[in-house]
């Protein structure tokens, strides 16, 4: 192991960028699992699906970020449909929804993954854009532009969702449904419609997250497995449903992973998110910013 101050600074810098990216890919799950309590293990698979859709659009000359934004309405509808189906099949029937609901989402994740393998093959895919491949020199450090782009989009997404959830009427309704569903029902609101809307937003956000994923690195269909660890680690570490917590937790994971990557090597990196997740579950399951 080579240790130097320069390397540590570089690891920290890269970790912050990576962390914001992780926060952005987790924020959809923070809404669907953190707030709505839907065991959405298919979230990373939908995100990878978003990456591949971005890839298809980018091949036709669209900028990857614009492609991600363009995909959001489509994914919103997809999310509404998934939630509707989940609600009708499991939540409405009540008992035992836990086991079967979870199995359902695992099944969906698997179908998406295998579908992508059948359609695109197992090879890695990537997109081209002006900001991919080149980097920005800052003194002695070189920061790839693609990380900066992801960083920017991540910040916009996180703050956008935070403001949306705390300032708008629907956003507050989503928070209310997370806090006390029966009370909301007594107020005359329909919790199912609010949840459906929120799940749609969570899925729409994952489309943009998927676009960032393919900007940051080439994607392959089985990638969602790794991101199950990263996204759930961030959401649990954040304390379920806390948006600013998600950003902080993303930063912690990003920095931890970047330091391991720098000093121990790439073969240890996948264990960081999952290891951190296990530690959090064992030591502080309510997360850092938990209610």
């Amino acid at each position: 192991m080579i240790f130097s101050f320069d390397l540590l600074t570089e690891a920290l810098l890269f970790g912050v960028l990576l962390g914001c990216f992780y926060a952005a890919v987790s924020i959809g799950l923070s809404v669907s699992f953190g707030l709505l309590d839907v065991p959405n293990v298919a979230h990373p698979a939908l995100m990878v699906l978003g990456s591949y859709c971005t890839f298809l659009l980018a091949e036709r000359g669209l900028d990857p970020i614009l492609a991600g934004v363009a995909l959001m309405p489509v994914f919103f509808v997809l999310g509404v449909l998934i939630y509707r189906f989940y609600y009708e099949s499991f939540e409405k029937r009540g008992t035992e929804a836990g086991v079967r609901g979870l199995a359902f989402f695992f099944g969906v994740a698997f179908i998406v993954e295998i579908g992508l393998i059948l359609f695109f093959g197992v090879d890695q895919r990537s997109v081209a854009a002006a900001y991919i491949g080149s980097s920005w020199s800052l003194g002695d450090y070189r920061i790839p532009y693609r990380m900066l782009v992801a960083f920017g989009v991540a910040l916009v997404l996180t703050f956008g969702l935070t403001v949306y959830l705390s300032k708008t009427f629907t956003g507050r309704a989503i928070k209310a449904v997370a806090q006390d569903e029966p009370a909301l029902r007594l107020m005359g609101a329909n919790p199912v419609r609010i949840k459906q809307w929120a799940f749609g937003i969570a899925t729409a956000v994952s489309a943009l997250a998927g676009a960032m994923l393919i900007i940051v690195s080439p994607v392959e269909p089985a990638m969602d497995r790794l991101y199950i660890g990263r996204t759930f680690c961030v959401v649990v570490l954040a304390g379920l449903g806390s948006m600013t917590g998600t950003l902080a937790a993303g930063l912690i994971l990003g920095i931890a992973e970047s330091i391991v990557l720098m000093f121990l090597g790439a073969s240890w990196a996948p264990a960081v998110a999952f290891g951190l997740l296990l530690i959090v579950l064992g030591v502080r399951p309510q997360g850092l910013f938990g209610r």
Partner: protein
Amino acid sequence: MKYWASIAALFVLALTVALAPTNDYFFYAAFVVLQFVVLATAWNILGGYAGYVNFGAGAFFAIGAYTATVLFKWLGAPLAVQIAAGAAVSGLLGFGTGLLTLRLRGIFFAIATVAVTFVLETLMINWRYVGGATGLQLVRPAVMPPFESYTRMLFVVMAILALVSVCVARYVQDSWIGRGLRAIRDSEEAAECSGVPTLKLKLFACTVSGALMGAAGAPMPMYLAFIEPASSFSLNYSVSALAMPMIGGTAHWAGPVIGALLLASIQQIVTVTISSEINVLIIGVLLVLFVVAAPDGVLGLFRRWLRSSK
């Protein structure tokens, strides 16, 4: 009595088949099918009776396999010792995972088991002694006399494991342990209030389930004469271990057996005739279909059909 007689009959059947002059490929395929019977039955002890979804069957399976490999390489331990040790280590792993997360809601247990899979896989990738990421070639010892080939012997060993795991599942289901686990599944608070030692029972189920999965994995290195992290920790094991009981029916010990026999046989045929991606897709699609449309699995469908035909 009838039950023990049929168990003995099945064992004798497996033994005669293994000694009969049949095609060796049959044993390659049958070994895998029986392996899934063990995995599915083991999964059901925790997942079906207590309602805790283990999505890390691959981890327990692989730890069994790696324990066997280490013992074989280090001491040249015989197969029986490898299996016993694999079961013991995986049982401990189950106990540890349970201790860490069973106090939390079910989803956290499921996510934690995924995490355990990846953490252990990374450890094995970085462990030179067992071959790291590239894997390790193993030389099988000479086959024991009554059997013609090593695969046939492994087939009988796996048949014994399958019968043992079914006996364990049946015992758990019919005893007070099973009643306690079912009470946990229906309402954990109510069970705790009625004096069911919930945490103890969950830990017991977790340990037994993990141990059986480890036992299923232990003969794997000898079967392939090779071990490697990516395929040993494959999530395909985890999905199959979860899908088979769900499709067969989780309420009764026969459910996972039916699910495993059905699905693993389909998988074997599809892998050979079409492709291995399609076989995983079939598992996923069937899982979703059954979970949504037939929550009690094949057994539930069968019972409904019995009732309606009366």
